[in-house]
């Protein structure tokens, strides 16, 4: 008896793994959750905020239907949004009004007030692909290196970088994604790095 059940359990485990592997290959949400697969998107019916008695819930798109098509990440929406945009998985519109100016700036800022942690690299490029200058300047950040008394406490409180990170952009527990520059190997000067392409006046043509 016991052996039979052990076999059954083993079989189910193997089934679970294989289904998950298949699901992962087809980029679907997993069916079983025994094997430690983190590709989890909750369904609207059981996400605790949608009302299951609301009929529209059957019309709305399920997160995994859309998000499993995009480059996988283990945190946040389980999507690497930067990569999804860069590699053309998604083409989000930049504007509604045709006269809106689309501003993109390619300038890293390295911040070294991080005690013993690696320094913080803030990339303007990846941010201005999504955001407009005025989303940050000057109500979150004064556009001048060292003009902002950023501390990790304030960030965790939801100020500065924490306004978006931990709410919509990737979560704050991913320390290494911001604290990404090792002092030992960094040769240049901290602060604003040379502008690679574009400049504060650089303005691209808006898309129709």
């Amino acid at each position, binding site marked *: 008896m016991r052996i039979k059940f052990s076999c059954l*359990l083993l079989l189910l485990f193997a089934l679970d793994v294989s289904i998950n592997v298949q699901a992962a290959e087809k980029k679907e949400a997993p069916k079983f959750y025994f094997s430690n697969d983190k590709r*989890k998107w909750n369904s609207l019916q059981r*996400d605790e905020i*949608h*009302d299951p008695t*609301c009929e*529209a819930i059957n019309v709305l798109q399920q997160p995994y239907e859309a998000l499993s098509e995009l480059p996988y990440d283990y945190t946040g929406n389980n999507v690497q949004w930067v990569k999804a945009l860069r590699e053309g998985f998604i083409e989000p519109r930049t504007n509604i*009004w045709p006269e809106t100016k689309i501003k993109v700036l390619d300038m890293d800022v390295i911040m070294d007030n991080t005690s013993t942690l690696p320094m913080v690299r803030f990339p303007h490029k990846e941010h201005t692909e*999504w955001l407009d200058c005025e*989303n940050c300047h000057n109500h979150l950040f004064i556009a001048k290196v060292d003009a902002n008394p950023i501390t990790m406490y304030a960030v965790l409180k939801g100020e500065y970088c924490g306004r978006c990170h931990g709410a919509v952009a990737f979560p704050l527990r991913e320390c290494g994604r911001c604290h990404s520059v090792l002092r030992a190997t960094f040769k240049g000067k901290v602060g604003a790095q040379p502008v690679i392409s574009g400049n504060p006046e650089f303005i691209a043509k808006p898309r129709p």
Partner: protein
Amino acid sequence: MNNIKNQFRKILFLLLPIVGMMTPGVLFAEYADVVMNKRSDKMGLRPVIFPHWFHRIRFRCKVCHSELGFEMRVGSNDVTMAEIANGKFCGMCHNGEVAWSIEHCDLCHSGKPGLKSGIDWGWDKSLTPDSW
């Protein structure tokens, strides 16, 4: 008889982890889903659920937070249905042109009654100073 009962118990005991492993581990909303409920509840409607993940596939942040002027702070936008019907806020797009129009109340007003406005269902708050 007793024997069958014993067997049954054994089966139950062994089935329990199987049932357990088939129930999903996640019990919260998608990351960055916003609940908007300043007025809806009081007016007898379900709260509004705004899914960031759905919209950011189609629009960059700047469209809503710069062009359309949504303040990046839950609750800091005074959204009323009158303004939406006038083409402000969600109404900039949900006007039958960029996206479906506001007749489809349920699609936006789809939240559980009584929810508080906020965005924190999707993420782990254990890092924020409030929880220290």
